[in-house]
């Protein structure tokens, strides 16, 4: 990853304005998209809709994208985040179906996600495989394992009568009027921010991503930190798996992969459009917000469903192109 220091040497007002826009490209894009949809559709700017964005579009993707942010922080990438989501979901739903207490089942789910992360950690830190290839292997193996576990890919349903109260609460409950999934996402966002910016572990992780050799020469065991980072990825993604299965009360094999490309997109949008060009939780969250708002806003415009996908792609493409071109101009 290229490390850029603040690209702006302010000289004169126009440059300063361009600089401000470039340095906050993501926020500017978010405000622009928000404003456009507020004017274009009457229902976008309503409390109910904004809440729906957060619950339906934002929560799960945000959790998975934050998991991805840890992988990108250490200079890696994790293509198997969806596998961790799926394994957690499978363990959780299966154990609840088998009559185990929800707490035990949830712990097993988290364990399953962490196990996926640990497998990646062995490949990457132990053997030294590049994260892209190692996690790609995990993704493929995970797909087979899930099909083997489910007789070739059959969903595992929880019968409506067999859904425990605690299980339902995790997916559809509310604390002080705030949906539980959103509360959990908020906790993870805050915790991840603290870990990456305040804790020693996070600083070392970011340093590994920027200059691995310097970290090694400083006598820090980079391998251990990378391993922990990938286990964290699995663990955090597992939380999304628990919430997902609690919301829909079913486990569908390999459904977690739906998050993969959006999570990568959000994380890298957050990374490349942030001031320092480093992975950061705030940037990732803004990236997820951007994707969520665009998805929701296009839905409200009443556009044909298929055109919505084109629209999403075009908007994100435009945001990326404009900000990269601007950045280039500003640094030129």
């Amino acid at each position: 990853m290229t490390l850029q220091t603040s690209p702006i040497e302010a000289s004169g007002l126009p440059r300063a304005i361009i600089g401000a826009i470039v340095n906050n490209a993501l926020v500017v894009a978010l405000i622009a998209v928000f404003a456009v949809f507020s004017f274009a559709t009457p229902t976008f700017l309503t409390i109910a809709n904004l809440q729906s964005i957060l619950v339906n579009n934002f929560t799960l993707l945000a959790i998975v994208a934050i998991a991805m942010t840890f992988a990108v922080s250490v200079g890696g990438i994790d293509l198997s985040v969806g596998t961790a989501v799926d394994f957690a979901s499978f363990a959780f739903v299966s154990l609840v179906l088998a009559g185990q207490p929800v707490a035990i089942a949830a712990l097993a789910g988290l364990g399953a996600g962490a196990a996926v992360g640990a497998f990646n950690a062995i490949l990457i830190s132990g053997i030294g495989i590049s994260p892209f290839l190692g996690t790609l292997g995990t993704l493929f193996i995970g797909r087979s394992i899930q099909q083997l576990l489910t007789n070739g890919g059959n969903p595992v349903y929880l019968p409506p009568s067999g859904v425990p109260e605690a299980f339902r609460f995790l997916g559809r409950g509310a604390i002080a009027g705030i949906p539980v999934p959103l509360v959990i996402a908020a906790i993870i966002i805050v915790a991840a921010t603290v870990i990456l910016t305040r804790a020693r572990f996070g600083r070392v992780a970011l340093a590994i991503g920027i200059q691995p050799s310097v970290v090694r020469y400083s006598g820090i065991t980079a391998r251990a930190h990378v391993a922990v980072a990938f286990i964290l990825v699995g663990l955090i993604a597992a939380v999304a798996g628990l919430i997902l299965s609690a919301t829909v009360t079913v486990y569908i094999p390999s459904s977690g992969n739906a998050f993969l490309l959006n999570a990568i997109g959000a994380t890298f949008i957050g990374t490349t459009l942030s001031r320092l060009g480093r992975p950061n939780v705030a940037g990732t969250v803004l990236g997820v917000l951007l994707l969520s708002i665009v998805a929701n806003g296009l839905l409200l415009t009443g556009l044909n469903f298929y055109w919505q996908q084109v629209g999403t792609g075009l908007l994100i493409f435009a945001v990326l192109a404009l900000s990269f071109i601007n950045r280039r101009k500003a640094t030129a």
Partner: protein
Amino acid sequence: MSVDIQLAPVIHFEPGKIGDDTTRSGNLAAAALRAGSLIAFVAILLVFSATAPYFLSVGNIGNVLGQSAISGVLAIGLTVVLIAGGSNVVTGGIDLSLAANMGLSAAVYATVAQLGYGDATAVAAALLTGGLVGVVNAFAVVGAGIVPLLATLAVMNIVAGLELVLTQNTVIPASTPLLTALSSSGPLGIPALAYVLLAFTLIAAAIVQYTPTGLRLYAVGEFPDAARAAGLPVRRLLAGAFVASGLCGGFAGILSVSNLSGSTTGSGEMLLPVVVTALLGSVFSRRLVPTIIGTLLSTLFVGFLVNGFQLLNISSVLVSGVQGLLILLVVSATTLLRRQEA
């Protein structure tokens, strides 16, 4: 330990050291791995043929070639981008829009054919579609400077959406003389698609491996600064690689219409297997870099594996797992060999 995101194992040559022990043992390790992977390839063929006598018959080999044609063409397109883009996923070459591109091109071909136009028009439309997607990628990466991973991810979404708009998520049937010819059998009773794959590989290999342009692509990918200093048109070559990859997507689209007698949805499923195939390809090359022939071998490797499983009645469920294990085994071997040599 390095945690650089690397796509392909790259042997680093240090200018002053050519010929001394380090490089020689590096070559040895590379040779061992290359031989190892070829031996593994042959071993798998032998095991399958021992258990399923039909496996190594001409007819079956032809089948495997024919069934691998589409993924082979896509993987070769991706290989060109890997060569010109370099081995770093974030800043280097990757084209995530290839599979979606194939889907859109197939839909365009089927639609144009259904409107009553001839094969020439339909082929031109499909290739134009694929090429245009490549041009958009090239503009995004080279013109706007967006990292390829992000740029082609966004383009993938747009292209997949356009395919849905065009097909309304249904199958568009198509039947033209060209499609009939492509889905028939050629000499030796081997599917015509098999010959298409071989011919396409030969042409691509000739261009990439044996022309100055091909050599320049490698230079741009492996040593961009040196390439720039040597006066190579780095940007134009990189853009060209993305356009070439787009054209491969268009071509694969036509092949997929012939294979399925129409355009079908779900082409996005092919993306990750194609990425795996292209990445594995470098193991089958002498210097462990992406090459066209290496990619063909890796395509056939995967093809024979899937085919052998079918013949032995092993559940197809295991295929992706074995593919995953294979990547990990091959890459672990590469990594451990490289570590030994250090």
